[in-house]
């Protein structure tokens, strides 16, 4: 059976580079399942988790927003941050969540507000991944 070559690329390096049967990501329009033979595609990803499946096994990756590119059974997830559940620092994510919540309440300038909003979404996304695992 044909497989997908999946790469998850972040500014800190490639965190996944392997073969999978199926990839499920969340684009702005909703869930997107990619199987081998998919048409070439580029779509933005929201802050969410991606699932990489082989047989019955499924691997999750927290995506801090980015893009997905599909080109001839080669799937590239391009994200500013991405972690597998094992790599998530729970302490740090909790602290980031609290800090972001504080900053949103203070409502200083609007740049700060938007940034805090994104930080909060990313922290919640990371924490969700851990909770689902337990």
């Amino acid at each position: 059976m044909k497989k997908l070559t999946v790469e998850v690329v972040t500014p800190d390096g490639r965190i996944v580079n392997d073969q999978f049967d199926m990839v499920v990501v969340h684009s702005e329009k909703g869930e997107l399942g990619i199987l081998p033979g998919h048409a070439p595609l580029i779509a933005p990803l929201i802050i969410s988790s991606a699932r990489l499946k082989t047989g019955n096994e499924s691997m999750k990756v927290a995506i801090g927003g980015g893009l997905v590119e599909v080109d001839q059974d080669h799937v590239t997830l391009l994200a500013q941050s991405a972690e597998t559940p094992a790599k998530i620092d729970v302490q740090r994510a909790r602290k980031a969540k609290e800090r972001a919540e504080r900053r949103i309440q203070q409502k200083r300038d609007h740049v700060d507000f938007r940034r805090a909003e994104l930080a909060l979404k990313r922290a919640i996304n990371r924490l969700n991944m851990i909770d689902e695992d337990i």
Partner: protein
Amino acid sequence: MIPSLREIQKRINSTEKTKQITNAMHMVAASKLGKSETTNHAFVAYAEKIEEMVHHIVESYGEHNHPIIIPRKVKKTAYFVVTADRGLAGPFNNQVLRRLEEIIAERHHSPREYTIISIGRIGRDYFKKRNMPVLRTVTDLPDNPYFSDLEDLTFDTVQFYLDGEFDQLEMIYNHFLSAMTQEVRSKRILPLIGEDDVEDLKKSRHSEFIFEPNEEEILKSLLPQYAESLIYGAFLESKASENAARMNAMRNATDNADKMISDLRMQYNRARQAQITQELSEIISGADAQND
């Protein structure tokens, strides 16, 4: 007066100690440079991929009106200046600040026409002392940074541009060519293309990609991410250059100390020889006087 033996010995000892310190700093910088190169290497895969995607989309899309791509009338320019937190790195900091001064002197008549975004203590102190307009300043970034260390600054910078805080962004930083050579670069980051290239963009080409939902929406999220990656890339270059510059400066200092020690040893031996000769001639003349 010729210095005494003890004085020379003291100077030799203190130079030896300085040499030990500069030598240690040289080793530390060399190992940090090694790590910087690994970080840069990890980043290259991302940088290449995002650039490729931008090309795919920009090429297939004829009507470009996104502010990140298209130049607008420049009322205010922002200079993103990357310096180090510490000195002792040869010309690393000075040459960046000098380049900024040159550019400002050439282009601007009043401080209202430009603003500065600065990384590093050296830059921060320099701008503060001269009362230059600073929009954001960040210091004490780690030697081996992750993208998250710089995320807030890159995000804010791009947002400021989109909000019209400034109309053009230029980075001034040390570009890493090799462990021996680094050069100061000033590079336009925003807008992504210059006035002259706008016409080229209007010709759209066919692309086999499906853009979901459409090119415009993708550009909205891709372009800021791309601009941020350019800033981060330049910062990584600067970090590698800093470690290389510090390594070279400390190696030169160690070499100079070696040379100084060998000169001092020569002086020491001469003085010792002179002392022995003098003592001998005193003994001989004393003995001669007794024989008479």
